[in-house]
């Protein structure tokens, strides 16, 4: 009986657990509830994936008001891929949260952290699953607001400023998005994305639609940290509690990319819009600039978390590059990279969380990691593997997405883009190796509380590391799913 309600349960489950946690005000309960709900979400997402694979797109009408009048939840090959990514990350991070939060967040606020985590999860899943432009905005704000709180709970006082800055930029982004939606609503009179897509093809006056495109691009660009709108990201990632960083880094920007994909390919009419604006060229240019500049900044960054945060900006460049290249191979690469980079960066930040716990410090400079391999051999080894995936060495997840991006660029005949992809990977190798070299070859120094990371944290981290390698060899799910999604997008474009 519940099988048909899975789309709504996907969102309502974490949404309803958040107030329960507030009601209970108990740290232990909060953790158990969060973990259970994360795994529940994962189960639902997988069940939905099976359904979509079997019978195609699922549409769910909230309150039995049929689309386009009511709010429609829509699960297709693309959204189900992102659903799995988000809930998978959540269920890997949740068990890890217990020790990490206990160490980094004051006891009386810990329950709040879990509640916000659930809300954030609900928001991200909601963005992905909804088929309604305004509902998407609401979920965007739910996830954003909870993210700001999550970041502000960091121990370092810089976390407050980081959260504040992210809040300003994020709110401007969301406001821009809603302005764009408002313009589209004025032109089409509907908020249902599928309906909007059909009606946009009949709109004669293009200027407001172009303005809407610009507003939505900039708005979501802020949320997804598209270069040069990424200024909020490094500090937010660096000073948030480790668990929050791991979760946000792996999911939040990815979901925003999903929104871009959805609008660009499934709402706007490319024949009308992209012919009038050099959208693709702009995307390629910004992505390329982001890949190179952010990688170079990462190369000279001294704080480890900020280093990998800048690396995230660069990696987002890979993803948006695939959108700009706009063919099957590149989109497959892009969508695969959502998952691959999510897993990789999640693993890195989870591991760094363990290091932060044992080193008893929030802001770690690269030099402080000296001797990590001796002190925490498994953690150090995990960092190496995840780092290799970040570089894109064959046999890791990163390689697969890079392969498709290169194919995409070659198919477009853009040789120089291939060069940039490879150059950015080389710079990635350089900054990853800065960390590896210090961890393995420098004598240990600085404070250390002894031991590997706690077993709960380590398990989560190593699970993600194993996924980094697994998705490098078996790509049935990652590339298979991404390919389905890319086909869906390209079909919709026609």
């Amino acid at each position: 009986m519940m099988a048909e309600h899975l789309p709504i349960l996907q969102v309502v489950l974490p949404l309803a657990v958040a107030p329960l946690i507030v009601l209970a005000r108990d740290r232990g309960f909060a953790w158990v509830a969060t973990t259970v709900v994360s795994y529940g979400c994962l189960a639902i997402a997988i069940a939905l994936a099976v359904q979509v694979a079997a019978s195609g797109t699922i549409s769910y009408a909230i309150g039995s008001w049929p689309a386009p009048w009511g709010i429609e939840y829509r699960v297709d090959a693309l959204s189900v891929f992102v659903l799995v990514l988000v809930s998978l990350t959540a269920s890997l991070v949740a068990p890890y949260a217990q020790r990490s939060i206990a160490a980094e967040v004051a006891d009386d606020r810990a329950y709040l952290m879990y509640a916000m985590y659930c809300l954030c999860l609900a928001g991200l899943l909601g963005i992905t699953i909804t088929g309604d432009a305004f509902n998407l905005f609401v979920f965007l704000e739910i996830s954003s607001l909870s993210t700001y709180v999550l970041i502000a709970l960091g121990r370092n006082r810089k976390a407050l400023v980081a959260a504040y800055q992210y809040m300003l930029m994020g709110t401007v982004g969301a406001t821009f998005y809603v302005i764009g939606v408002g313009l589209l609503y004025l032109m089409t009179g509907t908020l249902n994305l599928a309906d909007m897509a059909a009606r946009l093809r009949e709109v004669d006056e293009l200027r407001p639609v172009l303005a809407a495109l610009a507003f939505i691009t900039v708005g979501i660009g802020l949320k997804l940290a598209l270069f040069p709108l990424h200024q909020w990201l490094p500090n937010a990632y660096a000073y948030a509690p480790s668990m929050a960083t791991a979760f946000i880094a792996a999911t939040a920007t990815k979901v925003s990319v999903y929104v871009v994909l959805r609008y660009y390919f499934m709402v706007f009419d490319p024949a009308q819009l992209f012919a009038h604006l050099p959208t693709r060229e702009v995307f390629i240019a910004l992505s390329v600039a982001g890949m190179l500049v952010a990688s170079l900044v990462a190369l000279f960054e001294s704080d480890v978390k900020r280093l990998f945060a800048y690396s995230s900006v660069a990696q987002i460049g890979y993803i948006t590059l695939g959108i700009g290249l706009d063919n099957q191979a590149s989109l497959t690469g892009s969508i695969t990279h959502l998952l691959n980079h999510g897993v990789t960066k999640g693993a890195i930040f989870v591991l760094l969380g363990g290091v932060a716990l044992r080193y008893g410090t929030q802001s770690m400079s690269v030099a402080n990691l000296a001797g990590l391999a001796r002190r925490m051999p498994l953690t150090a080894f995990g960092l190496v593997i995840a780092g290799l995936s970040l570089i894109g060495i064959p046999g890791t997840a990163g390689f697969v997405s890079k392969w498709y991006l290169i194919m995409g660029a070659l198919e477009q005949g853009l040789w120089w883009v291939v060069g940039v992809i490879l150059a950015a990977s080389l710079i990635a190798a350089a900054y990853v190796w800065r960390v590896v070299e210090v961890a393995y070859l420098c004598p240990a120094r600085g404070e250390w509380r002894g031991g590997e990371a706690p077993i709960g944290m380590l398990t989560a981290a190593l699970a993600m590391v194993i996924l980094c390698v697994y998705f490098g060899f078996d790509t049935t799910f990652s590339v298979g799913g991404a390919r389905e999604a890319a086909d869906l997008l390209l079909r919709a474009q026609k």
Partner: protein
Amino acid sequence: MTALLYALLVPAVAALLIAASHRRPNLREAVTLASAALLFALVLALSRDVLDGRYPALVLGEIMPGLELKLELEPLGLLFALVASGLWLVSGIYSIGYMRGNDEAHQTRFYACFAAAICAAIGVAFAGNLLTLYLFYEALTFVTYPLVAHHGDDKARSGARTYLALLLLSSMLFLLPAITITWLVADTIDFTVGGILNGKASTGTALALAFLYAFGIGKAALMPIHRWLPAAMVAPTPVSALLHAVAVVKAGVFSIVKVLVYVFGVELGAQAFAWLPWVAGFTIIAASIVALRADNLKRRLAYSTVSQLSYVVLAAAILAPLSIVGAVLHIAAHAFGKITLFFAAGAIYTAAHKTEVSQLDGLGRRMPWTFAAFGIGALSMIGLPPAAGFVSKWFMVIGALEAQHWLALGVIAASTLLNAGYFVPVVYRAFLAPARDTAMHGEAPWTMVVALVATAGLTLSMFFLADLPLGLAERVR
């Protein structure tokens, strides 16, 4: 054919076992030796199939649609695998003496990475398509990095950094695009007899691909991508032996030959790689001249390696049937000779703590076995009978004559003189020059001596018993 997989798994499992037994050095070394012996036996068992003309293949899985992880054993790969696994056993024995004799740190890491490097080398040898080759090729780079950086001091770190940077730079910027372009053009990346690009790639594309492959396979150390090789000399000597004689550089030239023969094919390759003999010839001569001027023994050996590798490239690039045989044979011949030389250098360092050629005066009388072996290795490098190097050089010369490639002939002739120029003085000083100091020491620890005598023996025996390698080499086409 799951035997292929077993062969791949043996060193991989060995690496894990070694890491697990880090508290018990004797057990750890036993694991190394036992798995090396097992691997060699496995590869030897596989060789019967290959000699009978059956090439075992195994698809491990599909990484991306159409892109498989595929193992296939053909004669060239078998020869490389035989060399790698056989020399693992010998160098394992040698390492025990060296590492304990010099009281090195991080011995577990050393043995584990060593086994992992052999695993990667076997993977390269067994690769059935370009993607698998690339996978293991990159893996080889990364697992040898800790070996190069073994000492962990500033010098080791900067050397290892150069090593990693150059190898990654070349493989990422050139080799990876080359593979993707091949996949786009030929629709397949499987190694196929006769080549896969033939008839599909235009002359321009083929030429561009040839450049990308030749410089992308940085492990072959063509100038100007040879700098990593001398930089890697900071490593302990058994590692240098591994890098320069067995795994890394051989993986490089092996890949080049493989690409030439199985991706381009003889006809297309001859067009696209017409420029390669010039580069290889230049590398041979230039590296020999640098070696002539180097006083540090390991540096001299490193540049000798650079030049010897280009022999293989040169011979392969001529693409005459007999020169290919020569190239393939030289992979094995150089491996035996060079590992002997490095073993000797390591033994000298362990026993006498000498690193420079000018310090070697009179040492031969105290370490007769070591220097006798060194002499045999040097003979092989120069290409004189009764050493292995003569056999391969013979085929190269015949092949070049057959193809009427005068450049190659000239280069081989000139470089033979140069080789003699930088090896003979070493032997001369050791045996004939009067000793300068009076330090009392004998040979290095016995395991080292056994190992280097064994490799010297191999170098000689390949001259007298060339059937197996020759049989394999003649099947490569």
